[in-house]
């Protein structure tokens, strides 16, 4: 599968309620081999403004832009791969026991 086939898919909970869109995919890169394995998906309200990443980074400047974009992207959260039940061409379904994590990058 290509990354762009995953991005912008709707994300649904076990009951079929729409939670948002896949705005990005988080990977862990092994320090030596550089193998990049999928950790989870970032779910947000809108996909198209998320590339600036203010809601995931500690950058705070310029303050006005940072604050606006963070407000604009509020509600973005991370779900871990283990909480993803299925990925279909028309949407991503989560387990009933899924948990929301902070989208901030470590």
């Amino acid at each position, binding site marked *: 599968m290509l990354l762009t086939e995953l991005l912008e898919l709707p994300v649904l909970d076990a009951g079929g309620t729409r939670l948002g869109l896949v705005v990005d995919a988080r990977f862990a890169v092994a320090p030596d081999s550089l193998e990049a394995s999928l950790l989870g998906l970032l779910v947000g309200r809108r996909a198209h403004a998320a*590339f600036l990443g203010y809601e995931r980074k500690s950058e705070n400047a*310029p*303050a006005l832009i940072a604050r606006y974009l963070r407000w604009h992207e509020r509600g973005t959260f991370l779900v871990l791969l283990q909480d993803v039940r299925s990925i279909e061409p028309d949407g991503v379904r989560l387990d009933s026991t899924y948990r929301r994590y902070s989208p901030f990058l470590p």
Partner: protein
Amino acid sequence: MKGVLGLALGVLTAIGGFVDIGDLVTSSVVGSRFGLTLVWVIVVGVVGICVFAQMSGRVAAISGRATFEIIRERLGARVGFANLAASFLINLMTLTAEVGGIALSLQLATSIQPTFWIPVAAVAVWLVIWRVKFSLLENVTGLLGLALVVFAVAVFLLHPDWKALGGQLLLQSPSQGSETPATYWYFAVALFGSAMTPYEVFFFSSGAIEEHWTPKDLGQSRINVLIGFPLGGVLSIAISVTAAVVLLPQQIQVTSLSQVLLPVAQAGGTIAVIVALLGFVAATFGAALETTLSSGYSLAQYFGWPWGKFRPPAKAARFHLTMIIGLVIGAGVLLTGVDPVQITEYSVVFSAIALPLTYLPILIIANDHDYMGDQVNGRATNLVGLVFLGIITIASIAAIPLMIVSAAGS
């Protein structure tokens, strides 16, 4: 001693390189129609270009990323592509205007038709890009462009009524004779666009990489920009003043390049005219080089192709092909007989429209520690940057409605 020379050379180049066909035409048009009531826009525009040229140069020197790479990385493929399409077309328009400007300047010097000069100019621009080193082309056109100082000299030779001129500087009722407020603000946007044209930033940041800048070169670049650009802006203002002193009282609204020259002739006679024409050719030729290179830079940086004059052309084939195609299109458009002065007038307004999408990514990257380490923007720079982003956005939104209401300033 070598350091001082290098410094002087950089500053002089920045002054001479600041003015292009857009500044020549727009400053003169505005001076001949509104006197000095719009000079404040040139001042604002110069401060803006100083802030963002400096910022893009700093980002390029520290992170090694030129402006269009950043635009794509920060705006994504889709919005970045929209920006590329708009910037590329506007740049092509400006390129066409500059090549047309060379042809018109050479016509003024020789009275041979521009249709003869257009292909000559396009081939000359290509040859210089193909074979001449980056630093050489920048320095020679910049230094020859200094001939435009003749406009500043002309201001004094005209013995204007300084008091009356000073009175015009203060922002007053925009209605000057038969001009409407819409026309006034339309030309304010045009003047702003001519001072802050995006190609200057593409060229400046890519030039930093062409010349392999390191953070150590930033001091020099800051001085070039902070002294050179304002002095270049003074030349723009001088052009405006000569038009305001000689042409405005006679109700001559500038519509051709030959009219820009008349006040210089009145002030300093034949010799001044010859010097001014040298300045015209150098300024338009230099800007034609910059816009041609910028067309290659923007496309290559978006798609990740190899680019730059420091590589042999065969090592940056698509970059060179883009520039050749750009020049062919520009010359082709001009040979249909369109008026380069009109292309210029539209290109500066469209530049103003495209400004926010170019300057926002620069401002954001200049704050990103991944790219800039601990050299991110300070608070003061961010404040000024944000203020300008606001001004740019307003100008960009207002441009089209003003263009329609004022019938493109007619």
